[in-house]
C-alpha cells in the first residue's frame, strides 16, 4: 500500500508531487535486506522497516543496548521492564536470541558483524558524511550509539526526508550541521528517490512512483548523477 501525501512548506508547494510516506520509505528499505542479515535499526522510520521484512527471510535484529533477536512489542500486560530496545521501548525476543553487555554489543558493531545499519539523518553530504545528532543552539541530547554505528558499519542506509521542514535540501555538497560520521553513508532512501553515495556524488537509482527526475534534481543540492532512464521504485 502506497500512501500519497503533499509537502507542507517546501519549494514545490506549487506542484502536486506524488511521493512516499514514511511507510513507503520503510517498505523500500526493507527490500535492501538479504537473507541471513544481522541488522541494526535506528529510531524513527528505520524502526518501521522491521514490519516489512519478507516473511520467511532469516533476519536477526540487533539492539545496541545488548540484544540479538529483537521481536515485536509485547502484548498488553506482558511488558517486561528488563527488556527494552535502544529507544527504551518495551520489546520481546524471538527464539534464538542472546543478551550481552554494551562492550560486546559495540564490539560486534565495530568488528562489522552487523551487516546493515539503517538510520535517520538531518543531512547527508555527497561524499557520504552524515549529520544527525546535534543542532547548534538547540538542546543537545547526545549521539547515543550513532557515532559508533556510522563509524563501523560496512553498509549504512539512511532513511530520511529529501528536504527539511524549511524546504531545504538535506542532500548537500557538505553538511552544515555538526557531523556524526564521515564518508560512511552508502545509500539513501527518501520520499522522492533511492540514491547511492558514490565517489562522484549522489547517484540517482530510482524515483518514487509519480515523481519526476526534474523534481528530484530540484530537491537535491549536492552533486547528483543521473544516467540513463531512472526506473520507478517497486514498493509492494
Amino acid at each position, binding site marked *: 500500500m502506497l500512501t500519497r501525501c503533499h509537502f507542507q512548506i517546501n519549494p514545490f508547494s506549487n506542484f502536486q508531487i506524488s511521493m512516499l510516506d514514511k511507510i513507503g520509505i520503510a517498505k523500500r528499505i526493507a527490500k535492501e535486506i538479504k537473507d541471513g542479515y544481522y541488522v541494526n535499526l535506528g529510531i524513527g522510520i528505520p524502526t518501521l522497516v522491521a514490519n516489512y521484512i519478507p516473511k520467511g527471510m532469516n533476519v536477526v535484529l540487533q539492539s545496541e543496548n545488548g540484544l540479538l533477536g529483537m521481536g515485536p512489542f509485547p*502484548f*498488553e500486560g506482558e*511488558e*517486561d*521492564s528488563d527488556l527494552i530496545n535502544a529507544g527504551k521501548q518495551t520489546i520481546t525476543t524471538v527464539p534464538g536470541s542472546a543478551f550481552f*553487555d*554494551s562492550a560486546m554489543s559495540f564490539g560486534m558493531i565495530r568488528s562489522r558483524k552487523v551487516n546493515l545499519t539503517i538510520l535517520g539523518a538531518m543531512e547527508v553530504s555527497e561524499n557520504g558524511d552524515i549529520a544527525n545528532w546535534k543542532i547548534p543552539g538547540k538542546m543537545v541530547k547526545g549521539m547515543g550509539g550513532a557515532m559508533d554505528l556510522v563509524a563501523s558499519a560496512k553498509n549504512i542506509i539512511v532513511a530520511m526526508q529529501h528536504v527539511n521542514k524549511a524546504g531545504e535540501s538535506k542532500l548537500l555538497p557538505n553538511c552544515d550541521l555538526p557531523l*556524526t560520521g564521515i564518508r560512511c553513508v552508502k545509500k539513501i532512501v527518501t520520499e522522492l528517490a533511492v540514491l547511492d553515495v558514490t565517489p562522484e556524488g549522489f547517484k540517482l537509482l530510482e524515483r518514487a512512483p509519480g515523481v519526476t527526475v526534474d523534481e528530484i534534481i530540484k530537491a537535491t543540492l549536492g552533486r547528483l548523477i543521473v544516467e540513463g532512464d531512472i526506473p520507478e521504485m517497486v514498493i509492494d
Partner: protein
Amino acid sequence: MNKTVKNADEAIKDIQDYATIMLGGFGLCGIPENCITALVKKGVKGLTCISNNAGVDNFGIGLMLNTRQVKKMISSYVGENEEFERQMLSGELEVELIPQGTLATRCLAAGYGMPAIYTPAGVGTEVAIGKESRKFMVEGVEKEFLMEMAFDADFAIVKAWKGDPHGNLIFRETARNFNPMMAMAGKITIAEVEELVPAGSLDPDQIHTPGIYVHRIFQGVNYEKRIEQRTVRKR
C-alpha cells in the same frame, strides 16, 4: 569471602563529595535504584557521574539532579529531563557527551587493565577534537581511529538480578547493559541485587561478573523498575 553489607546506606557511606562514580543502567533499565536513593539521602555533592543516561525528572539520576548533587555528567544520551536541561543551559551542570560504544569500551579498558583503546567512533567529528588519532589497516584499507583513555572512577555502582556473598553477579535481559563493564571498572564496586543467594547457589558457568571485581553487595528493596516507553501491541 563475604562482601555483604546491610543496605545501600552502608554500601555508599564512604562516597565523599567530588567523587567520580559510575552508575550502571540504560535509560531506567538496570539502574541501581537503592544506591541512588541512598546518595540523595546522604546528600553527597559535586559528583562526577559516568552513566549512559541521566534518568528522568523524578527517577534515576534525575533524583540527584533535583538535589543538585551532580557537578558533571559523562554520558552518551541525556535530556529526557527538564531539570537536567535547565541546569545544563544555566551552566550549573557540566556535560560531556561521548559515543555509547566509547563509553562502554572505556569501562572495559579500565576493567581489563588496558590504559587506552582505539575506536573509529567520532573520527572527523567534534568528539575527535584534542584527541590523538591514528591510522591502522582494516580489511586491507587504511582507517582512522581515535585513542580513548580508560576511565578512572572512584566507585562503580551497579544493579544485578542475582548475586552471592562473593560478589558474583548475574544480570537479566537488557538490564545487563553497562553494568558488567562498570562493575569491572570501579576502584570500589558496589552491587545491589534483587536476590542475594548463598555462595554456591549460582552456576559458576553462568556468572556474568566474577566476584573479584565486586567489593560490596546487598539485596535491594522496593524495586520500582520503571518503564520509560511502554510500547505494546494488541492481541
